[in-house]
């Protein structure tokens, strides 16, 4: 096992897939010469050359359109949208083009591509560079949606995304890029659509994604000290959604919590809560509680940003109160 940072794991995953398949190429703004603004693609230009690692103009619609046209006709492109907030300037491709062409063409066309994007808060960048928008993508039929929380998952899920025959929106969390972790050596391809129990427990189920997984684990430690044994699940993939693992845990614990970085309304936790309130109603021992960022744009100031996302204290507090 190598120790890699989350950002190195991005480059490692892309390297693995580019070595495995010549049809894989990377396009995006400053991804080549500069190695990415988050330094997640450092070394790729040197390794694979300008045919396969390409700096583009600031033309997000052209970037995603180019990726789609290439994917439809035989390539396996990876496109970077620098900050996930910028998905808004090319949303037509994400919402109306990628996910509908297979269906509309009755299966004649496919769209095997990956859009990698820096998601989430914590860098004091303010309201237009800090959003968690994985729920935007989750709402669109025909997409797959992935958000890894560790370097190993970055490599394995990115590889799985590149090999997947459907369009995958891959959310990398900006505040995790510096995180180190063990990453399996050799070829490593994970499986989309699988959640992971990262802390087994018996009293309640806490679902989390990306940065929030670490905060949920921290909260679970605090709760353990008070005698509440929480099971923490890293959802990892919003579409496909591993409802077996999620609902299986809920049936066992009887209590469900979601920890979401997105602003509250229509977050991914709302969907899962609605599934649980329908399919597992009689297994529930108490309210389903969502811990989210409040439904506001994000502030830039560090002291404000620090308290606006769900914190371990807030998570533990919410669980404690509703379990009490």
């Amino acid at each position, binding site marked *: 096992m190598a120790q890699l940072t989350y950002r190195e794991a991005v480059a490692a995953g892309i390297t693995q897939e580019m070595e495995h398949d010549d049809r894989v190429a990377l396009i995006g703004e400053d991804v080549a010469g500069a190695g990415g603004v988050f330094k997640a693609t450092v070394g790729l230009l040197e390794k694979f050359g300008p045919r396969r690692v390409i700096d583009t103009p600031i033309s997000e619609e052209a970037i995603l*359109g180019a990726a789609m046209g290439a994917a*439809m006709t*035989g390539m396996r492109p990876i496109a970077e949208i620098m900050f996930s907030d910028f998905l808004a300037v090319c949303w037509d491709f994400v919402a*109306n083009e990628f996910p509908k062409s297979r269906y509309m*063409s*009755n299966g004649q066309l496919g769209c095997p591509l990956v859009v990698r994007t820096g998601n989430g808060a914590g860098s004091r960048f303010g309201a237009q560079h800090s959003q968690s928008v994985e729920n935007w993508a989750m709402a669109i039929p*025909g997409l797959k949606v992935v958000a890894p929380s560790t370097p190993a998952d970055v490599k394995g899920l990115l590889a799985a995304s590149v090999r*997947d025959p459907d369009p995958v929106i891959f959310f990398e969390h900006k505040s995790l890029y510096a995180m180190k972790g063990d990453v399996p050596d050799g070829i490593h391809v994970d499986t989309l659509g699988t959640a992971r129990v990262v802390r087994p427990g018996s009293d309640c189920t806490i679902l989390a994604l990306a940065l929030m997984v670490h905060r949920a684990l921290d909260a679970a430690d605090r709760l353990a000290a008070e005698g509440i044994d929480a099971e923490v699940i890293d959802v990892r993939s919003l579409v496909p959604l591993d*409802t077996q693992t999620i609902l299986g845990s809920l049936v066992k614990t009887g209590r469900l919590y979601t920890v979401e970085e997105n602003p509250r309304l229509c977050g991914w936790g709302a969907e899962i809560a609605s599934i649980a309130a329908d399919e597992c109603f009689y297994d529930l021992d108490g309210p389903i509680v969502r811990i989210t960022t409040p439904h506001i744009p994000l502030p830039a100031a560090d002291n404000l940003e620090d308290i606006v996302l769900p914190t371990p204290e807030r998570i533990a507090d919410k669980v404690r109160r509703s379990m009490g």
Partner: protein
Amino acid sequence: MAKRRASSKEVSNDDIGEANRLELWRLQVEIRHCEQRAYDLFLQNLVKGTSHLSLGQEAIAAGFAAAMEPGDKSFCTYRGHAHTLARGVPMEGVLGELMQRDCGLMRGKGGSMHLTSVEHGVMGSYAIIGAHIPIACGSAWRAQYLGHPDVSVVFFGDGTTNIGAFHEALNYAAVFKLPVVFVCENNLYMEYTPIGQITAVEHPAADRASAYGLESIIIDGNDADEVYRSARAAYDKARAGDGPTLIECKTYRHSGHSRADPGKYRPPGELDAWKKRDPIKIYRQRLLSFGVTESVVQGIDDEALRKVDAATEICKASELPPEDILTTDVYADGGWAWRN
């Protein structure tokens, strides 16, 4: 940069040749009859949803398609029946999709605005203005990347030149010298609004070419020979690795924007003036002037109509699409499961 217009001298040389000319004629009359039939079927309430005809614009579809090689890729809009037919797609596939029958190209799942026939190189028809222009660039990138010889050709209207994706795609294609050909069908209207009223320049595409380092090219979109020649030159350039071409074709649609639009926003006389320049009329005379006999010309025309009649019968006899296709082909595994 100078504007290129085919001179009447060019028109009379025989660089195109009779076989190609008869093919151009066949394509134009087939499209004409098929579009007219689509309109009739609409009046009979047999065409569902919306539909956008290319009556009057047939020469563009015929000329660009006839100059293509097999394997070249067409990217169309909602106004895409003509371009789809021109690639050799059977009429019952097109009319069937308009009628939302099981024999339709996409078995009714896409509808008239999304005609697709990958086996014929019709890589989809796109209904949100502009999106397919960068998508065509992506297809061209693939050709360049994999060393394929094909050209990607994207058709769009005058009104489409004012959307952001047009600009991004043109710059992108020029920067990367992609083998893509951008075809603007300037039919003078963006839906119901005259293009000049909402565009800063007279020629919505050609006057923008220099913004991407491209030559300004305006052609007579009602003359299939001129279209064919321009297409061939652009494809040759693309295949030679010399990058994209933007071509503005001047034309006019005889019918309304969509469905039953009566086109009342047109100034009196405009339609009549353009009907005098009907591409079918022009080409019939062209063939005769090149010595093709009236009976050959009319024979192709009659045959086209027979084909349309036959296709119509197939469509009328076709079932509605079965309900079980409702949830197929959302994902590559054939299904729609978003959960386990």
